[in-house]
């Protein structure tokens, strides 16, 4: 049996840090055990693909680029005019099902689960920490819960997802994950943070 390992395994030995005033105002950790699949249509087959995916998953797909819809433990994100990223949890790996449902002439299905590492940050100051690198307006009126964006953080591509009022998830390329982690924890220093590995079992 081969065991999965996190790219952040090494940084687990790092301790939490006190910020100004000896406080730890943030929690930072990694979420594991999730799946990501990319589904994309060709321009002429967009409607057909949407119908097919809707039928296969039993849900409506988000209508506008940048919209996301949470259905149970699944999160469907419209990442492009004809492209979707679908996140699922645990054994709910839908890549194979979608591959058999989507004919090659209709579009493509690509499993990307291993390509990203999910780093999350939670706390009242999480937005301020992220604003140190993200040129996205994270005000709750402009970027509320379930909002996401494909953007850049400190020279690397990331997907940012707001999962609650105070919590953000960064889906970073696996090979840049340690570097992003180092950047994020450094940016969070003045606020202080508690490392939380409860979601990375």
């Amino acid at each position, binding site marked *: *049996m*081969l*065991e*999965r*390992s*996190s*790219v952040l*395994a*090494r940084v687990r030995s790092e301790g939490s840090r*006190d*910020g*100004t005033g000896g406080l730890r105002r943030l929690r930072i950790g990694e979420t594991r055990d999730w799946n990501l699949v*990319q589904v*994309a249509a*060709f321009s002429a087959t967009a409607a057909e693909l949407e119908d097919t995916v809707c039928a296969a998953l039993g849900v409506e797909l988000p209508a506008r680029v940048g919209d996301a819809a949470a259905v149970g433990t699944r999160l469907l994100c419209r990442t492009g005019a004809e492209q979707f990223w679908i996140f699922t949890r645990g054994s709910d790996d839908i890549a194979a099902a979608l591959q058999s449902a989507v004919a*090659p*002439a209709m*579009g*493509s299905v*690509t*499993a*990307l*689960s*291993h*390509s*990203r590492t999910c780093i999350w940050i939670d706390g009242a100051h999480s937005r*301020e920490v992220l*604003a*140190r*690198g*993200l*040129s*996205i*307006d994270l*005000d709750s009126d*402009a970027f509320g819960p379930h909002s996401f964006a494909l953007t850049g953080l*400190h*020279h*690397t591509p990331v997907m940012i997802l707001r999962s609650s009022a105070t919590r953000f998830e960064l889906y970073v*390329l*696996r*090979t*840049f994950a*340690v*570097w992003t982690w*180092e*950047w994020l924890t*450094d*940016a*969070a*220093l*003045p*606020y202080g943070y508690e490392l939380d590995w409860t979601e990375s079992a």
Partner: protein
Amino acid sequence: MRSPCYRLESGGRINRAQALEFSLDGRMMRGLEGDSLASALLANGMLLVGRSFKYHRPRGFLSAGAEEPNGLFTLGEEGRTEPNVQGTTTELFDGLRAQRQNCWPSAELDVMAVNSWLAPLLGAGFYYKTFIGPTRRSWMFYEKFIRRAAGLGRAVHRRDPDRYETRHAFADVLVIGAGPAGMAAALAAGRAGARVVLVEQDWLLGGSLLWEPLETPTAAWLRDIAVELESLANLEILRRTTALGVYDGNTVALVERRDHLRPNAELGESRQIVVTVRARTIVYATGAVERPLIFANNDRPGVMLASAVRCYLNRFAVAGGRRALVATNNDSAYATAFDLAQLGIPVTIADQRGQIEPSLRQQTQALGIELLAGTAVIDVLGGRRVKGALLGGASEGTRRTRRACDLLCMSGGWSPLVHLTSHGGIKPRYCPEIAAFVPGEYAEGHYGVGALSGSFSLADAVTRGVEAGRNAAARAGCGPLAFTLSAPAAQSAIHGGGAFSSPRGRSSKAFVDFQNDVTVKDIHVAHQEGYQSVEHLKRYTTLGMGTDQGKTSNINALAIEAHLRGIEISAVGTTTFRPPYSPVSFGALAGRNVRKHFRPTRRSPLHDWHVAHGAAFTEAGAWLRAWWYRWAGPTVEQAYIEEMRLVRGAVGLSDASTLGKIDIQGPDATELLNRIYVNSFDNLPVGKTRYGVMLADDRTVFDDGSTTRLAETRYFMTTTTAHAAEVLSWMEFLLQTAWTDLKVHVTSVTDVWAAMAIAGPKARSALELALPGHDLSDARLPYMGCLELSFAGVSLRLIRLSFSGELAYEIYVPADYAVALWDHVLASAAPLGIKPIGLEAVASLRIEKGHVAGLELDHRNTLRDLGLGRMASRSKAYVGRELSQRPTLQAEERWSLVGIERLEPGKPLRGGAILFGIGDKIEGHGRGYITSVTWSTVRENFIALGLYQGGLRHIGEEIICAYPLRDEQLRARIVSPVFIDPKGERLRA
């Protein structure tokens, strides 16, 4: 001699209960909370604050704000040293250490003050005219002496221990400047519900209202508005923050200073923060600065702008002298005179105008002020500080009189600060009523209010501020709002614009630009020598350069030039205003992009394993790659040879995860490959892999790699590590622009798959041990074949191809399982002697096999140059095909790929060595160069790949490899680039 103390017993916006200790040139002094460095120094009687740039003349503070040209200090010490900081904008804090600049051994007794005596020789263009010979390189000799003699503060070479930060912010309405107009605008926009950011460079809100005495209706108004602004949750006030520049898309760069908080870098606290604000609308309320008057010795310590004197008086409770002379050409300076007189300081007003407003005349009489109408200052008496002034009629030839004074307040009118609006593309427009430039037509969503617009009335500022704030909020989708705000009555309501006053004569000591020691005479000289364009004038005289960027000098200089040319000031125009508005430290601009955060580092999924098992690393682009392992030797030179021997004799395992990997899907996937690769993919069966080469548009070899057909409409492409992103972007570009008809998707899966290469005569045996139960025979998995299989529940891709020339396989595994599989393979095949090998060995093995790689794929060589010409299909079109047919690219004498073998044992063959034929003169570019070199464990000799004129037509010939950097030459022979197994028997074993 003890310096006089100028602190008043009452008044000021300072905290008298909180004393602050600071030092100047090592001398301890005391200031108060709320002081600026400048006010604290003045309070301590320190009028001499530095020496001038060129002539080393004694200088005092001219202003009280960001326009200050003279009062520049070096703050901090060791790594925290920061030169050229304005004392006028530096908030005093306990422990501040300041040093005066450009003086030795002290500001009071400066040796280089001798320059002042040489001033007649050091005028405009002096350097250009004097240091031109005797040889062309003479300037290089003179320059260091000149730079040492002239200049401002000096930077240090020590590491800055402080931390700097950057952040992004967003606003519906960005208000720049928190004077009365800016505060009114912010309040109106905030009340309308807009998200407002109010930026103020000072630590207090109020702008020019801070110059008003404390117990006035103005001060009460200011307090009330500030409280209300603070109470708005949708309004962020950034104090101590300067707007540096305005850029496209309403993007504004700010720098926020936090020195007063004594930030602790260990706790992640930043000293300065660069804030990038993206605003829907911008309200400019940047105000105006007072202009100096121009007369002889107008730079003496104690000669100050009238508004600055009033600011020190009412804000900091500091009187700059005991007897004042106020020289003016407009009404605004009267407020200063009145405030001074009310404190009992004897005041004389010398007003260049013959006609004075009756109400002003009455007030002067009431306060006992001597008013001299139609009178101008001709010269200043005194050296290190003002002792008096020589006065004369405003026109030439009138009788001259002397007045004793130790404080000379001058006002030549007001210049709106059009810098930021100009950054934003708003062309300045000359306004003759105030003899200054104001912003021209604003773009949609941009508003200008207050003194910036050329109106100096407080009531106007507040009314227009409210209107702009309301309009800006409405444009951002907020409001409507019925809101009015009335302005308080204030002495500053008597502000007037002021016309330009022509200076008397061409005195060499009448300064226009204080910071760069540019005088009226310099402008005359430049004009006479033909430097009449404002841009030429600036560069010839250095006028308007430096840290103050000519904030106090530009208009006066333009007026003089206009007068000389006999044209209007509007026709002279302005120089270009560019960011930053005021100096910003490199630390702030760099932010946290320093040291380990300087640039991204990319790590293989096996990185931590390599670290734990003694790998040394090398950088390859953003990647950190395992270079060699300590199991093989203590140095790279020893280790890589041992690792090569392992592969040639048994089996080695290397990390190939850095290869670019692209998933290609769609009905037209094959067509895409046919178009971008020179060779055809039409007939590639499912389950087979093909080596491919792609050309750039300009026919040079762009990249190579292998592509595997996983299904009829799906391929798995690998690229070189270096070109992975480039190849993906290029394919996306072509699909989105040129080949929109193709139904293909390309997706990077570089991070999805880890890759490991297992190579050596025992590679198959090793794999069979690691993957029991799978048929890996030559029949099942032949050379260039691919198997997709499952092992322990994990999907693997196994591709048989070789970079080393040995029997070899690449194993692709989902990245999270990489460490587990790597460990498993090493453990399973341990009986065969398998060990990890690093990049150096891999790169050397490929040289022995004659494979081209990054060093040969340098975007300069054609297919033929690299010996790959036969790969190109004749039956299909592909990118780069047409240009590659050009005759010059077919020439036999082009530099093309050869192998090179050393003939002189004991001498090293070096990469980059220049190749010459026997008998050639060893100079110039030679006939080619070595691209890659290694020790060959097969040949037991140094071998190399290189490019040589005529290529393999010279096989067998001796050549000279010259390495001029070390003055080395050695004989070598041109051989085939394939040093081992030319028939490919090993890799097909």
